[in-house]
């Protein structure tokens, strides 16, 4: 949490009109190189959010969040899964995940093998008979934060809801634990929290968003495979990602209108 990518671009920037000296230039270059993925991710939150987050005046209705995932960039290291579990008190045992990594192996005959042992945290076993493999790739999965969320629709008491900034949350104090939302989620993104006995899921690290920080999984991704930000028309890395990639969403036929957009994803992914 110490070196969070909260960006206040004006803080250390040279004053307007001042000629940039060499030290400034080098330090800028160094910080950009070191934190490229982080910065790319961080900038999308924009000055406004950083400012809001800092002074506590966060206004949810000013935002509409989504996430982009570049399948080609994912190396399956599952740092995101670990970060998520740490950040969000997700039970450490297997079978409880806000986010997880799937490895796909497409054989020459079209057969598809998918694996996600412990969500990818412990790594993936060597693929048997690698010669017969046509393609392999990793797919990060998480709650799609649907615009038309079936989980919210079915919750009998309204304990799960969509925030003004487009994040699906569960009110732990209110959820009765009927598990209907878990059944209604087509993506397997929800689970029953074994200690709290309420439905649990990815929150886009909502507690961090409100402070102008990125979701933990986005922050730790070493390859920048996860691009978080505003979906509304603003000059952000997510907007750029969505402009320059062919995008897919998962299970579009169910009309859930996911806000997780995948680039470079194969049709086998379900």
């Amino acid at each position, binding site marked *: 949490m110490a070196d969070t990518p909260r960006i206040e671009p004006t803080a250390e920037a040279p004053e307007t009109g001042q000629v940039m000296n060499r030290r400034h230039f080098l330090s800028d270059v160094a910080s950009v190189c070191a934190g490229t993925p982080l910065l790319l991710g961080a900038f999308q939150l924009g000055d406004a959010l950083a400012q809001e987050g800092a002074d506590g005046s966060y206004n949810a209705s000013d935002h509409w969040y989504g996430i982009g995932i570049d399948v080609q960039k994912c190396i399956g290291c599952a740092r995101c899964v670990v970060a998520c579990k740490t950040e969000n008190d997700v039970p450490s045992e*297997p*079978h*409880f*995940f806000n986010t*997880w990594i*799937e490895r796909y192996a497409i054989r020459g005959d079209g057969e*598809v*093998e*998918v*694996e*996600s042992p*412990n*969500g990818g945290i412990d790594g993936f076993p060597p693929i048997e008979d690698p010669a017969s493999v046509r393609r392999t790739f990793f797919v990060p*999965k998480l709650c799609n934060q649907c615009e038309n969320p*079936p989980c*919210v*629709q*079915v*919750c*009998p*008491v*309204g*304990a799960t809801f969509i925030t003004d900034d487009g994040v699906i949350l569960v009110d732990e104090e*209110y*959820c*009765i*634990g*009927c*598990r*209907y939302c*878990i*059944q*209604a*989620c*087509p*993506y*397997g*993104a*929800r*689970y*029953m929290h074994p200690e*709290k*006995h*309420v439905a649990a899921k990815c929150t886009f690290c909502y507690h961090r968003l409100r402070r102008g920080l990125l979701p933990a999984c986005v922050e730790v991704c070493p390859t920048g495979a996860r691009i978080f930000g505003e979906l509304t028309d603003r000059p952000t890395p997510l907007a750029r990602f969505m402009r320059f990639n062919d995008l897919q969403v998962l299970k579009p036929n*169910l009309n859930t209108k996911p806000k997780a957009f995948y680039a470079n994803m194969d049709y086998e992914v*379900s």
Partner: protein
Amino acid sequence: MQGYIYPNEFELQWSLLIVLYPYLTGLVAGAFILASLERVFNVKEVQPTYRLALLTALAFLIVAPLPLLAHLGHPLRSYEIFMTPNRQSAMAMFGFVYAWYLMVVLLLEIWFDYRRDMVLWARQSRGLKRWLYYVLTLGSTDLSPRALKFDDSAGRWITVIGIPSAFLLHGYVGFIFGSIKANPWWSSVLMPVVFLFSAIVSGIALVLVLYVLSTMLRWRPIDMACLDKLAQFLFYALVVDFSLEALDFIHRLYEAEESIEILSLMIENRLFISLIVLQVLMGTVIPLILLAFVSPGLRRGGFLRTPPELRQLLYLVCAIMIQVGIFSIRWNVVIGGQLFSKSLRGLTVYKVELFGIEGLAMTIGLLCLPFVILWVLVKILPPWPDAVPQDEAEAAEPALVTQ
């Protein structure tokens, strides 16, 4: 486990208790619809089962929410369904449908039907029993012909309202499953209809069993006309139910959507016994054939002439097999819908635990509870035709009425 399932799918969300819930509500709805046959559709033959069917429906309705409650992560918060229902949620309507059915339909109908008898029982009993019946009449002791006529017509109207309500109660349970688009095994517009007809089948079969057993235990002769009629309706309901199930099945096979492979694999590997053997063969086909042959309602004397004693036995066997079949239907829907991954790439397993709040022991307990409640209800409000109190106070009645 077989193939790939999403990591969060390892734990089955809805267990044996949730299998029990639609089974119980189905029995409620079915028993009530049987009762309505006599009341609204004037099927006089089934009159001996009328009150028994109503009490059965009540006993099972009282128990129906218990498995749900036991299953909740936070049972103490369950009242929120009443307080702040999410109007978009199918499940949120549960409280209202349930309350409507219990308060407006069943209790009222039973009360109107028994009011005269309760007044008479109150008059003829002593001590605590007298007070009990008096309290049950709610102080309404008017037995004038006009009052009795009102009871009758009120009961009839409540039954008229009750039929769509019974449809609502169980069709709604079907909708809870059928409206989950994420789950191809559940998501079907036929689900509420299939639930409804299987409910009618199960309700008639249950009342048939209860009628035969209770009459035998009381050493009274069984009314064969009634039993034959019950069997006849059971046959009709079974035909409709089976046709709908078959339609659903064929439709799925013919459409062959992306889920067809994993669903076929599931039926072969996970549901073979419960679906093919128990539900289809034992619960439907064999009873259908048996009933078709022996029921005198379908052909005068039946295709096979059978002595009444043998028929009684066959009906009883059929009804019990049907109960097993209907329970299997609920199992196949609830558990079946969770045995395959929503990734459509793998199957998981469900192991029933023996003890614990969602275990087998609890389920058996909850299955027995309605019979205990029914026993108590029958003790208080005997449903037998020969238990209707004689109106000896008729002579004294005018004096009361004139007050």
